[in-house]
């Protein structure tokens, strides 16, 4: 099949969605399809420009294409008779982010009218897709809640086919990934302070702001945790990541209210390691079942410390959780073969 993966784009920005779109096209090619990524530029401000781009998407044609797989607003409006939506997200400022600090459209009569147009466009045009998949339960729930549109979850696999492996169950909790406010690594450091066992913490990843890095450093020094917390403030290569996960006690991933399950969660599962997350972390619970594949703790230091201690004290159980995590990940079929088969309707 000739398949067009549709993504929106802000010129010169390359982020998660772009990686995913490129990986999807590459994988489609590996599975014998002709695939290409089509990027449509968008502009978010002034807000009325958003409507221009909704309309632009409606007026575009997609010739020579057997299947269109759009990922994002507003490019998912491009008409095509055979469209399968893999929704990463809607324009959240018009939905759950309306009324929060992230609301980019002014709360004026015109602004509310624009918000309503965006919602109505989703209501009107999204059902044109033959099938709708979302990248997470959260995205799907939002689509049901705001637009009364049903969808199925299709979890995105890891972008690279790295060989995760399971080594000895060690004595450190690892937290890998971008270090910032919403990922809450500082909360992990504070948890260590409350641990009764000598469990250690390794925070590995690049900080996005100097202020947050300093806050972590300060917390470590203030509570004399230098021996128990290791902070590797730089980009972590795939190889390092595999190594860290392989030998850890468990992995901690506690972002605030994230849609997706988090790649690192899956990477931990594939390394047969338990995962600690929080009750307000969002989509992570796709892979973390409390007491089974890891812990879902309250987002406060003592609760996290309790989880770390339990893991440290019963490494056999920790290993069993890791194994259960891997089994869960496999049963969820978070792999490209499943994604390609599902999106192309050949499963």
């Amino acid at each position, binding site marked *: 099949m*000739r398949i*067009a993966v549709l993504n929106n*784009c*802000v*010129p*010169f920005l390359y982020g998660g969605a772009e990686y995913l779109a490129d990986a999807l096209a590459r994988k489609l090619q590996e599975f014998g399809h*002709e695939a*290409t990524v*089509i*990027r*449509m*530029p968008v*502009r978010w401000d002034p807000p009325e*420009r958003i409507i*221009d*781009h909704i*309309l*632009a*998407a*409606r*007026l*575009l*044609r*997609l*010739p*020579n*294409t057997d299947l269109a797989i759009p990922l994002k607003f507003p490019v998912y409006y491009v008409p095509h008779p055979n469209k399968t939506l893999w929704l990463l997200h809607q324009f959240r400022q018009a939905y759950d982010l309306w009324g929060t600090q992230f609301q980019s459209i002014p709360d004026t009569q015109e602004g509310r009218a624009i918000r309503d147009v965006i919602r109505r466009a989703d209501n009107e045009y999204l059902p044109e897709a033959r099938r709708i998949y979302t990248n997470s339960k959260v995205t799907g729930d939002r689509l049901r809640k705001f637009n009364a549109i049903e969808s199925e979850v299709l979890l995105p696999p890891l972008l690279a086919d790295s060989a995760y492996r399971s080594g000895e169950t060690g004595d450190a909790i690892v937290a890998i990934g971008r270090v910032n406010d919403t990922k809450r690594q500082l909360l992990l450091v504070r948890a260590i302070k409350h641990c009764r066992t000598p469990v250690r913490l390794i925070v590995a990843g690049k900080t996005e702001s100097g202020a947050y890095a300093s806050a972590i450093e300060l917390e470590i020094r203030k509570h004399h945790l230098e021996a128990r917390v290791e902070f590797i403030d730089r980009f972590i290569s795939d190889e390092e990541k595999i190594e860290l996960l392989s030998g850890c006690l468990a992995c901690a991933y506690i972002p605030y209210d994230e849609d997706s399950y988090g790649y690192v969660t899956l990477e931990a599962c594939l390394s047969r390691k338990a995962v600690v997350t929080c009750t307000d972390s969002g989509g992570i619970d796709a892979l973390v079942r409390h007491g089974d594949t890891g812990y879902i703790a309250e987002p406060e230091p003592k609760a996290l410390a309790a989880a770390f201690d339990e893991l440290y004290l019963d490494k056999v159980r920790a290993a069993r959780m890791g194994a259960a995590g891997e089994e869960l990940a496999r049963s969820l079929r978070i792999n490209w073969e499943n994604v390609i088969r599902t999106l192309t309707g050949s499963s």
Partner: protein
Amino acid sequence: MKIILASSTNVFVRGGATFFVDWLGHALEARGHQVDTLMLPVSEEPNALLEQMAAFRLIDLSQHGDRLITVRTPAHLLRHPRKVSWFIHHYRGAYDLWGTRYQTLPNSPEGIACREAIIGADNRGLGECARVFSNSGVVRDRLRKFNSVDAEVLFPPLPEPNPFRPGPYGDYLLLFCRLAHHKRQWLAIESLRHTRTPVRLVIAGPADPDAASYVDELRVLIARYGLDDRVSLLSRWIPDEEKTALFAQCLATLYFPFDEDSYGYPSLEAHAARKAVLTTTDSGGTLELIEEDRNGFVTPPDPEQIGEAMDRLFSDRALAQRLGESGPERMRELGIHWDHVVERLLA
């Protein structure tokens, strides 16, 4: 400089324009610029033309990049305050092919109005460009005639780095391009029949999808004139290594398409391999590159006269070498190199 490179694509049809954009992108990046390439989908279907033009117009890139370079029509309709166009062809069915059997719009009041709307919109988009460049003198003339736009010719060079290398001046003439009737491989065979020397001919290139019967005709022609041992017909995709070898070892090349817009990459490839180009007076764009008795021969499309030129080259290898070695100089003279192209586009 941050440069947005925007073009249109008839999705999944990889033609000259697609390569052109890729090569330009690489050349810009090689000179330290940051490039984001956008290929927006367009259908050639007449009913879709104006809607697509409106879609392009609604897309606003003006917040991004220090420069927008537009290539294939109707990308010049995109909004940007610092826009230049390297215009490679019109929507020809509404321009120079109007009134011929290749006219794509009906000759009705609607068709005429659509054509006028296309011309009007092109005038608007091109008029906004700080500069308009064309890829050939033919296209420059059309821009002047139909749009009253004065374009500067900027000949497209081969991609960097190009793999072509000089080699011995062998005993065969090479005609390397797609096998299609208007590329006139048949004229080469007809001409060979009139030669008095044992010069050989190699015709190489993939056949157009609808040109199977044409290839058969060529075979019949070769057999009829008893030229089987002097003509090699390689009707297939030629891998790069084989292609460069064919160019490196030929005596000279032939290129006489009927009335083409541009000089064609085969002529540049020949010159990159220091080979002369034999072309005809009715070939169109090649005449902008090839000068009689300097970097090739220009003869009338007459088999006897072409045959005579073939004999001259075979009998006088020094001549073939002299003409071939003049090629690079002629290319420099016309500014057919990326330094010139990039400098002009960013001026």
